């Protein structure tokens, strides 16, 4: 059953991403001021949206773990956070490429850029903590706390950035945030791309979750054998 769902999702993702890439790379006209490079937006922003949402979902799973003490939720939280960390990395790298082309520098110390990097570092710390603790229950407990702290911190920084008046990084452009500053023709593929990233994230989380569950099982069998 699980394999079938995974297969179905993968096929859906493959179709969606092919169709999306065709639309974005061949169908859309170049943007007036940025030329062809503006297309990086379709890879850059959805990665951030899905990645940051993933950290939030990871926090919810961690919360459920703390409430139930069922290690299954910890495994799920870890997989979600790991995949979100990868998406945040995609966001940082694509943003950097765009910045080099548009601003002439790979990195500008703008609050939005810096906050994403800090968020990435916090959850990279989470992954390091997972490797540093051997006992599964202690690991799950401590990591859940870091996940809650990290997500609250990321949310706090996100709010602070909205208070800062001038930033180098472009502000929100989507129509539901600004009331239509982006053309519909450019916006529709964006939402499809968010869906594609979401599918990708779910597929990867399912695969990682299974790997983690198996490794947990092997670990407990090993403990049993040594006991």
């Amino acid at each position, binding site marked *: 059953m699980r394999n079938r769902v995974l297969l179905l999702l993968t096929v859906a993702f493959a179709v969606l991403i092919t169709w999306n890439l065709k639309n974005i790379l061949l169908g859309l006209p170049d943007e007036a001021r940025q030329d062809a490079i503006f297309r990086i937006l379709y890879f850059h922003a959805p990665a951030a949206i899905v990645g940051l949402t993933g950290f939030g979902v990871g926090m919810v799973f961690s919360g459920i773990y703390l409430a139930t003490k069922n290690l299954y939720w910890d495994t799920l939280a870890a997989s979600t956070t790991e995949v979100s960390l990868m998406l945040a990395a995609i966001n940082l790298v694509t943003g950097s490429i765009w910045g080099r082309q548009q601003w002439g520098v790979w990195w500008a110390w703008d609050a939005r850029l810096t906050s994403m990097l800090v968020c990435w570092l*916090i959850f990279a710390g989470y992954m390091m903590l997972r490797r*540093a603790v051997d006992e599964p229950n202690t690991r799950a407990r*401590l990591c859940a706390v870091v996940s809650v702290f990290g997500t*609250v911190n990321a949310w706090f*920084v996100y709010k602070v950035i909205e208070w*800062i008046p001038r930033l180098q990084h472009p502000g929100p452009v989507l129509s539901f945030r600004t009331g239509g500053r982006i053309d519909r023709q450019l916006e529709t593929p964006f939402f499809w791309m968010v869906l594609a990233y979401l599918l990708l994230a779910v597929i990867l989380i399912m695969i990682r979750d299974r790997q983690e569950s198996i490794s947990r099982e092997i670990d407990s069998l090993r403990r049993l054998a040594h006991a």
Partner: protein
Amino acid sequence: MKEELSRKGAELAKKQISFSASSAPLRETVFSFLGQCLTIAQKDLRAEWRTKEALNASLAFSTVILILFSFALDPNPEMMQEFSGGLLWLVFLFAGALVLNRSFAREMQNDCLDALLASPVPPSGLFLGKTLANYALLMTLEFICLAEFGILFNVRWLANVGPLMLVMALGTWGMTVVGTVFSALTVNLRLREVMLPVLVYPMMVPVMMAAMILTTDLLAGTALGPGNMLWVRVLVGFDVIFTLLGVSLIDTVLVG
């Protein structure tokens, strides 16, 4: 000594009974909780005062960093005006990590942490007590560093001393609260000394950024006003949110 300890234990137990009794009025509960926090803080400060290990080490360390800064940057007045806030908080942060690291690590010898957890003090009281002690230590450290900094780099910090104290008080509280939670979190890890900075420095970025910007402004002679009030709000918001989060999660960190 033994008698004194058993007497104190009995007092604490009495406090705990009044703490858990549901009929006790709220005021008494709050006071007994605060009393427990202060007992822990007092204990930590007394232990530190007798050995002075964390304070001496962090003071020596901060002086070394201050001297190294003079090689890294040309300490002329214009440069100092631009960088002083950032430099000062970097010193606080690095030296503070030494104090924070010791906070729970000190309790590992002779299983003192287990004894503390078995005592009638609730984990949140233990946490707040330790935070208070760390706060007092860090503030002491910061005052000494500030004086040293003023002398070595010729920075006039007395002009805006009131607002500067406010920023230091708020910034240090945020730093201490987050630092103490993570000190408790990393205390049992093999790589404790490495994991604490890796986890805690990124967490402290919002409070550090706000404190650095405000301190630079104040040392350059700009008063607190509408232009930088945003950062005071950030400091207060960070302090409130993370104090609440720390108090509510410390049970999970220490006990499970």
